[in-house]
């Protein structure tokens, strides 16, 4: 969105360095979501729509409180409602605000073939630049959280921007602003990590929620959105939050060694036929052997 105000650390499919590659910022931004105090009011869903200028569209009723089955290209923020049976047999409703996780090691950006269609700012926000997007859908395969969504009309990909336009003006994201229980926090990664750990400790020690913990998955080098979960051992129960997300290894190989092997093979082929020509030359029909016959 606002490329002009933020330095860029990584650029998708960019043949060369990113201008902010060597920038070491002290602070990464981070959103903390405390699932233990979320009441599922969906104020954040509405705030997200409002701020980003989308209107509410038709939705699918799934026999649950959930607004729709999954996020869509114009609905970036979705509370996932999951009925969960506790060990003692009682039922609880797990509610998790689902959106882009802003991975430190973003799989979408690794997979993207279009120069500058996905960037990562030095503050950690991963942002799609729709004017450069070609709509190929590679980011869909690269994402470990199933987040990028395709707009079939414009043929561009969309997802949560972490309100980079607000953040770059010193405001907090729209969802944070709207949360009535204060289960959403925004600040630096270090501060949010501290706050989350303190809260998890409090849950473990004062509330007897022994498995409470912080979700900041190491497989993607940590995320710009972190959760406090009642049960850190079972993130899947929160509407399919992966236990150990990482960029798919196929994407890693495809965008790494396969590129070089393929390029070398193609170059080798061109070189091979050139050398063959220099060594053996063309197959010309020997006119002398066929005297009188015109080739």
């Amino acid at each position: 969105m606002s490329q002009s105000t933020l330095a860029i650390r990584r650029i998708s499919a960019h043949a060369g360095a990113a201008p902010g590659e060597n920038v070491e910022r002290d602070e990464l931004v981070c959103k903390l979501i405390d699932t233990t105090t979320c009441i599922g009011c969906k104020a954040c869903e509405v705030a997200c729509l409002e701020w980003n200028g989308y209107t509410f569209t038709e939705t699918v009723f799934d026999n649950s409180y959930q607004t729709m089955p999954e996020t869509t290209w114009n609905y970036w923020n979705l509370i996932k409602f999951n009925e969960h049976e506790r060990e003692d047999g009682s039922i609880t409703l797990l509610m998790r605000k689902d959106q882009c996780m802003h991975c430190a090691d973003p799989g979408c950006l690794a997979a993207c073939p279009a120069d500058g269609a996905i960037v990562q700012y030095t503050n950690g926000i991963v942002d799609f630049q729709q004017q450069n997007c070609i709509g190929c859908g590679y980011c869909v395969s690269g994402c470990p959280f199933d987040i990028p969504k395709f707009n079939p009309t414009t043929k561009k990909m969309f997802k949560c921007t972490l309100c980079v336009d607000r953040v770059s003006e010193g405001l907090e994201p729209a969802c944070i602003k709207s949360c009535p229980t204060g289960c959403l926090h925004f600040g630096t990664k270090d501060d949010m990590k501290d706050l989350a750990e303190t809260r998890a400790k409090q849950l473990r020690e004062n509330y007897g929620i022994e498995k409470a913990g912080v979700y900041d998955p190491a497989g993607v080098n940590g995320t710009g959105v972190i959760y406090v979960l009642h049960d850190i051992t079972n993130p899947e129960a929160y509407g399919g939050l992966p236990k150990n997300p990482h960029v798919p290894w196929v994407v890693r190989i495809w965008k790494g060694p396969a590129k070089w092997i393929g390029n070398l093979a193609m170059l080798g082929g061109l070189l091979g036929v050139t050398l063959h020509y220099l060594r053996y030359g063309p197959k010309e029909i020997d006119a002398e052997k066929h005297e009188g016959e015109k080739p």
Partner: protein
Amino acid sequence: MSTTHVISSRRPVGESGGRIVRYTLSERVHHWLGALFYIYCLITGLAFWSPYMYWLAAIVGGGPTARFWHPWFGLAFTVSMVWMYKMWDRDMRITEPDRRWSKAMEYYVKNEDEKLPPVGRFNYGQKLFFWLMLYGVILLVISGLGLWFVESIPWSLRWLRYIAVTVHVIAALATIGGFIIHVYMSTAMVRGGFAAMVRGEVSAIWAKTHHRLWYEQVTKDTRDSAQGR
């Protein structure tokens, strides 16, 4: 389709400088349509393959345009391959003379053609290229559809997305290898080959040198028909 290989009426065969029809108009049109579709897929595909080749997208109208048309040209190429299959299937089957020729292929590479056993309308290498492209396009179209409609593959079956990418890339690279050799041989290496696909004709001596069994077949066919047999 050997019945189509009539001798050009311009000059009688057997005499010096006789011309033989090697490719009918229909064969040439299908060949060049296939080439056009393939080359479009190649240029746009390579643009997405590597950031260092993304500029290739510019020559076909930019990234989004290239992305829009690549799968459609891929489908067109698939249709054109099916057409070529119907046209050339019988000519492209590997035969006993091909097997003998393939054992002596080394001489072909070294341009020592006089040491090669005779072959029919197409040699072993040409046939291999044909089958490579045919099986290649089958893999490309199936995996290509997976890439095209990636969001229709449900999250729980996402391994299919990864397989689609892998298969598409491997099949594309395999056909590119064949394509490099094909273009090299038919333009630079085997003189007269390119003209044959443009004008449709080869000289009798060209046919005799490169495809003797085919030459013998078509000259016999024409003599027979000239004598009303």
